[in-house]
């Protein structure tokens, strides 16, 4: 379906790269905005443009980046996943509930949490694909159920995790947080998967036109179940990271992430209708939003005004992108 350009010229190489990452002119706009925020932050606060602060931002964006990646995949397939609030809460208390103190229990806990995440996501997918309920309703329902279960399990933060695991999560390589490096690898892997794998190609096909995909022999239902399962798997990764950061499993850890995960996807240029966009836009948007929040924080702008800014960014983004949604 997609072939690699064999041209030797620089321009051809650039084209190949652009195709692989689904780079588009919109991304220049986001990069420009990032530079603007950077300039604004440097003027507004002298602490902003320091290396230590940049590493801090990298630390802070890990969870949002993982969840936004999951949301990108689901939205590309034409669905939506609003179950992260309940999912993260339940997975956090589940993982911390193992009280893993040695490597063996820790490995077991990680494996079990990942499996549970994929399983719960898979349930979303099965109800969406095979019963045919709108994903908005399905994931809203499962989120409510999972929040209830997480709170029934423990009403306040509970459980623990081995100290050496926290050290791994907090570790830095030459100043760069390990979590950030992990996220970059995750994004690269996903981008490659979207570019080269059957799964990735099918995802775009379904998002573009489900009926056409079905007729062309794409296993629509199985692919949908798979994408929700992957979304659950990524949520489990985020939950494990959160427990590593906090040292405890908070049943309310996911509050707000259901809607917060959508902002970077939309600002990054992925269409809510599905089939168009990619992970590079989401990555840039996550960086933009995190840098902006950090700059506003350092400039002592209260979080109340940050909400206004976030809402206006969404309105601007969708108003700019509106021409593309009228395909």
């Amino acid at each position, binding site marked *: 379906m997609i072939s690699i350009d064999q041209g030797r010229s620089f321009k051809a190489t650039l084209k190949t790269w652009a195709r692989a990452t689904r780079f588009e002119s919109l991304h220049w706009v986001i990069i420009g905005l990032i530079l603007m925020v950077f300039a604004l932050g440097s003027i507004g606060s002298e602490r902003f443009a320091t290396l230590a602060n940049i590493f801090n931002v990298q630390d802070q964006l890990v969870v949002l980046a993982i969840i936004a990646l999951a949301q990108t995949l689901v939205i590309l397939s034409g669905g939506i996943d609003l179950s992260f609030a309940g999912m993260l809460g339940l997975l956090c208390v589940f993982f911390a509930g193992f009280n893993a103190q040695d490597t063996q229990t820790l490995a077991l806990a990680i494996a079990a949490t990942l499996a549970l995440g994929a399983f719960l996501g898979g349930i979303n997918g099965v109800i969406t694909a095979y019963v045919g309920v*709108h994903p908005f*309703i399905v994931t809203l329902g499962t*989120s409510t159920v999972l929040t209830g279960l997480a709170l*029934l399990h423990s*009403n306040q933060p509970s459980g623990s995790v081995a100290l050496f695991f926290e050290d791994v999560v907090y570790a830095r390589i030459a100043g760069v947080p390990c979590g950030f490096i992990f996220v970059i690898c995750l994004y690269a892997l996903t981008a490659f998967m979207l570019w080269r794998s059957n799964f990735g190609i099918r995802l775009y096909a379904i998002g573009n036109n489900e009926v056409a995909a079905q007729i062309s022999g794409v296993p629509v239902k199985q692919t949908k179940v798979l994408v929700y399962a992957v979304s659950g798997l990524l949520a489990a990764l985020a939950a494990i990271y959160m427990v590593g950061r906090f040292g405890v499993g908070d049943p309310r850890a996911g509050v707000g992430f259901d809607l917060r995960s959508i902002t970077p996807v939309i600002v990054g240029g992925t269409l809510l209708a599905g089939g168009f966009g990619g992970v590079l836009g989401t990555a840039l948007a996550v960086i933009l939003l995190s840098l902006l929040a950090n700059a506003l924080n350092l400039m002592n702008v209260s979080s*109340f*005004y940050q*909400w206004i800014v976030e809402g206006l960014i969404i*309105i601007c983004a*969708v108003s700019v992108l509106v021409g593309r949604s009228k395909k």
Partner: protein
Amino acid sequence: MKALLNNSFLDLLRTQTVAGRQLRELLLLTVFLVLIWGVTALLSPRFLSLDNLSDILVQAAPLGFVVLGQMLVIVVRGLDLSVASIMATAAVLSIGANDSIVSIVILALGVGFVVGAVNGYLVAYRGVTPFLATLATMIVLQGIRFAYTKGAPGGSLPETFRWLATGDIAGIPVSLIILAVVAVAIYWLLMRSKFGYQIRLFGDNPQSAYMSGVPVRKIQMIVFVISGVLAALAGLFLVGYVGIVDNWTGQGYALDSIAAAVIGGASLRGGKGSVAGVLLATLILVSLFNIVVILGLSVEFQLVIKGTLIILAAAVYLSKSRD
């Protein structure tokens, strides 16, 4: 049609017409409501006391207002995520700025009107997906509200206000009377007026509605404005019921109202909605909360039941719409 002419209830119940289907859905909801009320009454006799039942109805009123607006939006293939934010913002801004009840009501409904108009403008004239437009206004309103109150809302509730939300006339709660008036108005608007015909046509098939000369942008705009105004009204009633103004007034109402609309038979694919159905669904959701408290279960059970119910209801309607 023959059944309709004979006007026989049982015949109508069996027909495959829209009216017959809606009647079956209503019956299903009523049976479910009676079932959960019956089981609870067996487990705890206190449940069926007049005090408790009227308490459930009064609690259901604010959600009822929101659900009616939400249903209209869903009929035109939209979604209004901003209703909860409108409830709190309208209440906080109007009560913080005024003492007299008339100006409070005017200011609150004005806030609802403006926000609804912004939603409608973004959706109808800018082509923004309703989900994103209302998500954005929800976040912006949240910021405006907190920036205005600096985190701690002020102002005091006039006494008449408390009476409107909790008092009664000849034993019938005032809020229920107002809800009934609004429900009848919405029913007339949706099922009996030209406007209602247009929005149902638009929900069924936007393109054919446009081709038939339906002012598609105008009707989308009006529907969002109605939803905003009703949400503001609900905010006032909720604040009056609770007795204090809070920045998070109405938290959860956005998703609850969507859930109630879907359980009540509105389809997210548009074109379908029933006033009686969504009001029954509202009553079911509020009853569940009351039941969990009365039976002494932990409150979290409510979440588990509610989520399961939402998915089940949607699945049931789907399987029925297929045959």
